[in-house]
């Protein structure tokens, strides 16, 4: 590229809505407040139904991405944080591949880049809104009428812009962490709490049953004459969440938390301050949950395309090889029953692993391989490979105790890539096990929730230490 793409963005910068940076460092308590408010706004928006929808019974093409997108179907938050993530990912890729040249050390370049990201996210919101409405997601556009269609698009667009601004607000220092993580984690936790305590009742022929597993447990105990049968049903009913799901969830949580604490402690010392000893931890989950998120995004895109193709050309052999879709027992949601897409989805219940062992084996092979590869690749994409870390340590004049500066890189090279690959594989295993056990929130979801909450906890502790330190020094 001869000229810089970023210069194209400059005229738009004045038009894009922007959150002003705080002029002073925001107090910790205030940050918590802002974060909570932002969360509430997001949650309320996720519950407000879109005005003018005719039908939400059709199969949801975005079903597979709901967890990582923090989005709720049929509400203002239809796209959740998708636009921000998609825009971010693509822009990062473009910048990394040098298609767009960005000089991160120049303040103006950084501003232009983030402005471009925002603009792109808004475009994606608008585009997605149009596609969703026009392809009949909310009902046939002809029967909706042009007015309602336009109204739907505007609603989705405005909601999307609000999310973008909320995220920016948190990132500019008004709140803790990033909006994206907050929204994802909250949605997952809420999903689990809801599936345990939902007061909604569903009538499926045996009389009204409560959706929430815990509530249903007490209800069944109360209502059924055979108490043993009541407990059994509370533990194993398959059409609604049951207690075994809950137990599995708790189990997966515990295991993930335990593994999160695994780290290789590298003793380091500073060349500047003699005698200053510290430890540089390299977590087992070095790439955190990126492999899973990337895998989810990849799989969802494949599924979306496969579903579209199958709906249009259900008899084409090539299309069928990619995926054959049918509604899953009882619900209107489509699931793949054969083809490439089939082997990319987890077996729904434990029994199915025995019924179709090839599916299980291929799925496990696919997941573990993809997770390992993505994890390894992420090191280069995100710039957290051994070379970059060694350089950072050198800049801070820190060396590994007992090693010379030059061999620091070699030692890191032994540990970091292995941690990334092994961590990725373990994350894959965890995700598969969680799905098999029937844990609520899916393996991916629980992993995300734990890592995000854990990161918040670390950030919390750091901020408090900083604030506390500053307070003392200021006196």
């Amino acid at each position, binding site marked *: 590229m001869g000229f810089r793409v970023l210069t194209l963005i400059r005229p738009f910068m004045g038009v894009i809505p922007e959150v002003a940076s705080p002029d002073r460092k925001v107090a910790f308590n205030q940050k918590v407040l802002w974060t*909570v408010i932002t*969360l*509430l706004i997001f*949650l*309320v928006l*996720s*519950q*407000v*139904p879109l*005005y003018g929808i005719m039908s939400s019974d059709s199969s949801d093409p975005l079903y597979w991405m709901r967890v990582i997108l923090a989005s709720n179907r049929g509400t203002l938050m239809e796209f959740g944080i998708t636009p921000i993530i998609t825009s971010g990912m693509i822009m990062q890729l473009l910048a990394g591949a040098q298609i767009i040249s960005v000089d991160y050390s120049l303040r103006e370049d950084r501003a232009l880049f983030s402005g471009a990201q925002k603009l792109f996210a808004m475009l994606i919101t608008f585009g997605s809104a149009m596609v969703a409405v026009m392809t009949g997601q909310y009902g046939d556009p002809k029967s909706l009428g042009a007015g309602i269609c336009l109204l739907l698009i505007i609603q989705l667009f405005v909601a999307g812009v609000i999310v973008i601004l909320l995220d920016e607000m948190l990132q500019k220092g008004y709140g803790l962490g990033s909006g994206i993580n907050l929204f994802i*984690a*909250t*949605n997952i*936790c*809420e999903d*689990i*709490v*809801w599936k345990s*305590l939902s*007061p*909604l009742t569903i009538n499926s022929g045996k009389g009204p049953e409560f959706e929430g597993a815990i509530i249903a447990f007490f209800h069944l105990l109360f209502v059924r004459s055979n108490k043993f049968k009541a407990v059994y049903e509370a533990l194993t009913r398959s059409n609604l969440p049951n207690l075994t799901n809950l137990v599995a969830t708790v189990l997966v*949580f*515990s295991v993930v*938390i*335990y593994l*999160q*604490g*695994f*780290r*290789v*402690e590298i003793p380091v010392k500073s060349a500047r301050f003699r005698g200053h000893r510290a430890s540089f*931890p390299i977590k*087992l989950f070095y790439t955190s949950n990126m492999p899973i998120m990337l895998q989810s995004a990849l799989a969802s895109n494949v599924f979306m395309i496969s579903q579209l193709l199958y709906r249009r050309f259900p008899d084409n052999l090539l299309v069928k090889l990619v995926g054959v879709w049918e509604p899953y027992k009882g619900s209107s949601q489509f699931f793949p029953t054969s083809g490439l897409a089939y082997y990319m989805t987890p077996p729904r219940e434990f029994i199915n692993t025995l019924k179709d062992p090839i599916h299980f084996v291929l799925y496990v092979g696919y997941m573990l391989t993809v997770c*390992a590869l993505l994890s390894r690749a992420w090191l280069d994409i995100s710039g957290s490979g051994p070379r970059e870390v060694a350089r950072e340590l050198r800049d801070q004049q820190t060396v590994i105790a007992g090693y010379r500066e030059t061999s620091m890189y070699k030692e890191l090279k032994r*540990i970091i890539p*292995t*941690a990334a*690959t*092994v961590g990725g*594989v373990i994350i894959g295993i965890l995700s598969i096990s969680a799905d098999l056990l029937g844990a609520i929130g899916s393996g991916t979801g629980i992993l995300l*929730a*734990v890592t995000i*909450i*854990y990161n*918040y*906890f670390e950030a919390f502790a750091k901020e408090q230490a900083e604030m506390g330190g500053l307070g003392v020094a200021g006196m």
Partner: protein
Amino acid sequence: KQESTGTSSGNVFLEAPQQLAKEGAWLLRRCTKPNKKEYLKIVQAVVLGFLVMGFVGYFTKLIHIPINNIIVGGA
């Protein structure tokens, strides 16, 4: 430490996972594992965060059920 450069058994699909398993075992042994005290501390933090986020979302959803009924019922 010698790296295995050739595929002596000739099958890449078996070699790579084996190598990975060996490296993985080495890494896991080298890792510091959280001891009971650390573990409980993290569990407490995560449970707290989970409860806060879970219930905030739960109550928002709960409150919205009747509100939504009013909105949609009236429209």
